[in-house]
């Protein structure tokens, strides 16, 4: 499908586009990179000119026990939400990519992607109403339920792209050779899909880790890290602490994403090759 020669436009236009692409990357990255830059700046004001190098904001962050509690909460929710959404997504993605078309396939796919089209604030308040109606106190569990919901579409998309192009005759061969369904899954399907599972675990963890809106409504007193940061943003003198924390989070999530994409691409030939999450 892809012909190697340039099929569109002139060379002149090509140079203009390259310049535009680089400018666009600058627009995407410069705002984000200001956070790490100012996090080493020796001033409470986030302003130019830079006042000199310091690591005191990182030291302050390391001493902030309230922040540690929030971080711990976020890690717990993120781990649980990524595990659960990946397990649910794995089963659903398998069903959605089977050779024999699943009855109601469109409905299943639409229903699992629906949460992408509902504003997060609406998901937050709807779950808040449900949980208070049932009469359960708000906690990390309620946040976790909301996070599994918003993580599920990502898990399914990532895992479906892994299952597509999966040779189902391998499973048939395994069954013909006398393995039961469970052992076939464990010894044939699982190793092949493993990169997809790892990518899904990493990406859903990031979705949960970064979520503010749903946790804002559902966390009760179990503050998660984004809710904690949002609270801090109201106090100007606390901003540098948020900068250090923000810089650390940005770098950690960029590394996780790059890792997830790299793992997902390992050995992913054929249909899954040029695909990127969300596409």
């Amino acid at each position, binding site marked *: 499908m892809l*012909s190697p020669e340039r099929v569109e436009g002139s060379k002149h236009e090509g140079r203009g586009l390259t310049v535009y692409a680089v400018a666009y990357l600058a627009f995407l990255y410069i705002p984000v990179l200001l956070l790490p830059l100012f996090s080493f700046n020796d001033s409470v004001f986030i302003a130019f000119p830079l006042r000199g190098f310091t690591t005191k904001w990182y030291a302050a962050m390391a001493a902030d026990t309230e922040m540690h509690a929030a971080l711990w909460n976020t890690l717990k929710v993120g781990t649980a939400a990524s595990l659960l959404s990946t397990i649910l997504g794995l089963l659903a993605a398998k069903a959605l990519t089977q050779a024999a078309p699943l009855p109601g396939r469109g409905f299943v796919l639409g229903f699992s992607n629906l949460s992408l089209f509902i504003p997060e604030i609406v998901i937050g308040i709807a779950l808040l109403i449900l949980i208070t109606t049932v009469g359960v106190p708000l906690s990390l569990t309620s946040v976790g339920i909301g996070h599994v919901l918003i993580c599920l579409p990502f898990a399914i998309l990532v895992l479906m792209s892994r299952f597509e192009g999966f040779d189902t005759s391998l499973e048939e061969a395994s069954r013909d050779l006398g393995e039961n369904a469970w052992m076939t899954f464990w010894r044939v399907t699982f190793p092949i899909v493993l990169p997809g599972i790892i990518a899904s675990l990493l990406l859903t963890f990031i979705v949960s880790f970064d979520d503010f809106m749903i946790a804002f409504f559902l966390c009760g007193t179990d503050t998660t890290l984004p809710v904690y940061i949002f609270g801090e943003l109201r106090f100007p003198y606390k901003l540098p602490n948020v900068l250090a924390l923000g810089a650390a989070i940005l770098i950690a999530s960029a590394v996780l994403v790059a890792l997830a994409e790299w793992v997902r691409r390992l050995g992913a030939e054929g249909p899954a090759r040029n695909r990127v999450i969300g596409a």
Partner: protein
Amino acid sequence: MLALPAMIFLVFALAAPMGLLLIYSFLTENGFVIDAHMTLAQYANVFTREGYRTLFLRSVAISSVVTLVTVGLAYPIAYFVAFRVQRAKFTWLLLLTIPFWTSYLLRVFAWKVILGFNGAINSGLISLGLISKPLEFLLYNPTAVVVTLAHAYAAFAILPIYVSLEKIDRSLLEAAADLGDGPFRRFLRVTLPLSLPGILGAAVLIFVPTTGDYVTPTLVGGSDGVMIANLIQVQFGRVNNWPLGAALAISSMAAVGIIAVAFIQAARLSVARIK
């Protein structure tokens, strides 16, 4: 069978709460008790109060501009990756998606830092001697909301447009060139119409969630940039009128849905006419 666990989960975690939200929108708050009498009073409130209408129209206007700006800025870059980049496609796509996965809250915060009264732009311009006092029009207005959202939703525009451009059969472009179309006419008559599904997909993926955005108007919008989500949040917070909040959420979602569907139909019709 295998999809059953996910479906059961979605019934309890998505269908049930959305159903309850709908029911709540027909109730009334009576002090600290919910009156279980079904009534349309909340909707009457939503549709007659002028302040609510202003806020809703402003949200739709801001999101429309955001959609237009984001798609317009993203199209050339998606085109670039699909047609110009040969070997490093994956690297480019990764570079373009990484910011999308990093904390949304922190990206909004970054814009607050940039546009603020003592922020990066103002302090930068002052220390360069270009201005003598801070520009006040940068932060706390609808433009700041548009800029921040256009930055935050970039990946939602780039990826769908890239996918639709990548799918275009290159021999169609060669055929158009052989038949005498110049690069510009060929783009208008072949490339652009064939990438329309990506453009529409991107538009909906941006327009729908941005109308309901809470973080950006709260942090960079100021009083002129308040949007419908702020009004909904207040009903579940300070004002404590959940039924009104539910009615506001349901009616704005319905209105946004109708606008999105109408937009897609209109776009399809106009393209059918060009062809």
